[in-house]
């Protein structure tokens, strides 16, 4: 086990290195200029733009820039944004709490919907409940979040006027009102993301449980006289969870990455909106940092998923 972990961690190094090279090269070769706004304004002499490019090292060859990025990264210096001239790690940390709150809650909501509903539907396949769940699940993951988001805004903000559709991090109220305001403004984005995710997870959970529930050992457990609840929770769900764990673990990096579209619609100042605005502004250090962190998280959670298998299924051995 320990040896396995060590070997996997060792493998992480070349992958992370490779990813950083690919990301950096792609970003360096992509067209665009962080100082585009200076270009169409005839009041700004072109030298200003040239100076800025030179002082930010944008005119150096890609290899030189990569080496510079890598060495400062190894020293823990993430660089600074060309656009806001703020350190990148600072920008990301500023966005992290909101992202974790909104995306994290939506993933929790998704799990809370998918697990019970999926399991219950699987124990009664093709019943009326199962049919309804299937229909709703299909509808849920067929409708893109930008569409459901707009629908919810139309309904709850514009016709009913119940919920605000602009997410604010700076709510001035205090005490319980502060919490209430936060919940109120977060309901729609969390619901949009959570139900979308929940819909597809419900399908997975249902099919995973269906696969297991027909196996002989479940019949044995039932024959032994175990209560249905115990059979399902202790024997069926535990085994059925393995593929679901992979899915959920691979989804965790997305919690950090935010949800670009939904964040844009509700103006949630999360990492997704930071990423998209940096891409639009050609702010390469920020794009680089966000995507790099995301890739590292994907690698990390792959490893976590692999380790979780062993815990859930003792037959899996690490070599």
């Amino acid at each position, binding site marked *: 086990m320990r040896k396995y972990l060590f070997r996997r961690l060792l493998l992480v190094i070349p992958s992370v290195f490779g990813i950083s090279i690919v990301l950096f090269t792609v970003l360096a070769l992509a*067209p*665009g*200029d962080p*100082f*585009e*706004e*200076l*270009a*169409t*304004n*005839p*009041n*700004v*002499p*072109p*030298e*200003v*733009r*040239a*100076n*800025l*490019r030179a*002082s930010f090292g944008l005119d150096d060859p890609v290899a030189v820039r990569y080496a510079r990025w890598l060495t400062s990264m190894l020293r823990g210096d993430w660089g*600074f*944004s060309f*656009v*806001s*001239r*703020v350190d990148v790690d600072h*920008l990301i940390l*500023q*966005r992290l709490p909101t992202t974790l709150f909104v995306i994290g809650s939506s993933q929790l909501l998704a799990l809370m919907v998918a697990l019970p509903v999926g399991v219950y539907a699987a124990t009664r396949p093709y019943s009326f409940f199962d049919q309804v769940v299937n229909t709703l699940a299909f509808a849920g993951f067929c409708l893109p979040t930008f569409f459901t988001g707009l629908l919810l*805004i139309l309904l709850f*903000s*514009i016709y009913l*006027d119940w919920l*605000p*559709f*602009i997410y*604010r*991090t*700076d709510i*001035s109220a205090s005490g319980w009102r502060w919490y209430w305001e936060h919940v109120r403004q977060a309901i729609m984005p969390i619901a949009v993301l959570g139900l979308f995710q929940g819909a597809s997870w419900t399908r997975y959970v249902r099919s995973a449980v269906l696969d297991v529930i027909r196996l002989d050992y479940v019949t044995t457990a039932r024959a032994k006289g175990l209560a249905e609840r115990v059979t399902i929770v202790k024997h069926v769900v535990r085994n059925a969870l393995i593929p679901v764990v992979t899915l959920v673990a691979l989804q965790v990096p997305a919690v950090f990455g935010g949800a670009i579209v939904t*964040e*844009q*619609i*509700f*103006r949630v*100042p999360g990492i997704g*909106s*930071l990423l998209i*605005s940096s891409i*639009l*502004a*050609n702010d390469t250090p920020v794009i680089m940092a966000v995507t790099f962190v995301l890739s590292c998280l994907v690698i990390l959670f792959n490893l976590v998923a692999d380790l979780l298998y062993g815990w859930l299924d003792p037959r899996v051995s690490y070599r």
Partner: protein
Amino acid sequence: MEEQELRSLIARVKSGQLSRRYFTRMMVGLGLTAPLAAQMLASAGVAQAQSGKLVYKPTKRGGGGALRTLWWQGSTLLNPYFAVGTKDQDGSRIFYEPLAAWDPDGNLVPVLAETVPTSENGGLSRDGKTVVWKLKKGVQWHDGKPFTADDVIFNWEYAADPATAAYSIATYKDITVEKIDSHSVKIAFSKPTPFWADAFVGVRGMIIPKHLFESFKGGKSREAPTNLKPVGTGPYKFVDFKPGDVVKAELNPSYHMANRPYFDTIEMKGGGDAVSAARAVIQTGEYDYAWNMQVEDDILKRLEQGGRGKADIVLGGNIEHIQCNFTDPWKEVDGERSSLKTKHPFLTDPAVRQALGLLVDRASVQEQIYGRTAIATANFLNAPARFQSKATKWEFNIDKANQILDAAGWKRGGDGIRAKDGVKLKMVYQTSINAPRQKNQQIVKQAAAKAGIDMELKSVTASVYFSSDAANPDTYTHFYTDIQMYTTTMTQPDPELFMIQFASWEAASKDNKWQGRNITRWQSDEYDKLYRAGETELDPVKRAAVYVRMNEMVVQNGVVIPVVWRPRVAAISNRLRAEQSGWDSDFWNLPNWYREG
């Protein structure tokens, strides 16, 4: 110091804006004595006259609650010298102020200056080489330190230092600024300068405090902590800033204008898109003001039926126009196309350019694409009114275009496309990807086809098209097509810098890495001479005449075909009283904003 100035100073002491001690210290600084200062305070003060069209009604400071504004691109930095985009300039303007601001009519309104320099008040020298600014007395930075001439001088040194990398360096690098006394400064130009109101004025003139930026001049400019926590003289004090998300500020209790500001807090929220921003202001009333409504007029009109807000449209100098290439974009000479050594095969024929001008259906473009958010125009130099040419006019007339082309010897071939001496009237028409622009291209293409001109439409992603990438042939400065269309922004009421884009020496080429501002590569000795004359002409009437003539040359020669004039559009709550200016930041008049009813 005049009696008037003294009296207004006393009034501010009376209203509690200015401390007694500070007033006395200042009088001593001016050579008076403390007892005399006390005597003056004993007498009554004089209220200051207001300027601007917006009449400020509240009679006391504060009490207005929260002002919520939406910028669909959030501010990313709050140092006005790095504020390239309007979103950053607007965010900075909450905290920092210039000596004077531009009102909607292009007039100067004093902010941190006591008065606007004129030749009558001795502020402007006869030779046009110096300007004396008298600073308002009793202005305090948010941290309580007094604002003085030293701050103004420091701003010049800061911006003029190339290592600082200020975007407005061009405004400051060729001037010198001297201190006359604690509250007046003299700007000296190396040559007579009719447009003197650039440094320390408007968007490029926001003044930052010396005591906080002094040690962060030049190469260290990025490290200043105040870059993220501004300390200015403005009506609102810094509370919080999250780049790209939100700027928050609260009432400045020691603001230098009496009874202002009205709102207790101001929030500038960023992100999202223009349509939902319009919705939040006009339809649901969740917000009070939203910037830059790049929204189709139909949608704005529909939202306005809700009745909580409206679109506020103000004229500025942005012009959507078509440029004609005077060089050959299809022939490569010395490693570049559109080289100055070549001549365009048919766009150099005035008849073709004239016909093109007649084929742009501006009325349809305005009605079908932009609605209230554009105005058909024939002028390239559009505002302020005194610079607008009365001689140019536009016309949409396919028959006339056909006649002109026939008369010039362009005969229709078997395929319906005109040709002369083996040169066919086939052209590539490029612009950036943007729905209204693509519709506009279609309108022009259809009309051109009826006149025997074949147009191939090309659209380039905005991030490529407007980039400065010297290696990419699709940027607008390379101009490797026959004609192209985009909007240029004119942000100041003086046309000098704007009109440089037709000066011969500015032609974009490989030698200057396509950084030259003359993109059409049109060259005219007469125009160059006029431009040089305009640079030094001090008589405002004569100078205006020069620019009007230059505009006519450009338009009548068909160097550019102006299409529509694009005003600035904001969404504003029906209860909010605010005034936009096309020549300055959206927040130019923020101290006077208030809410009614």
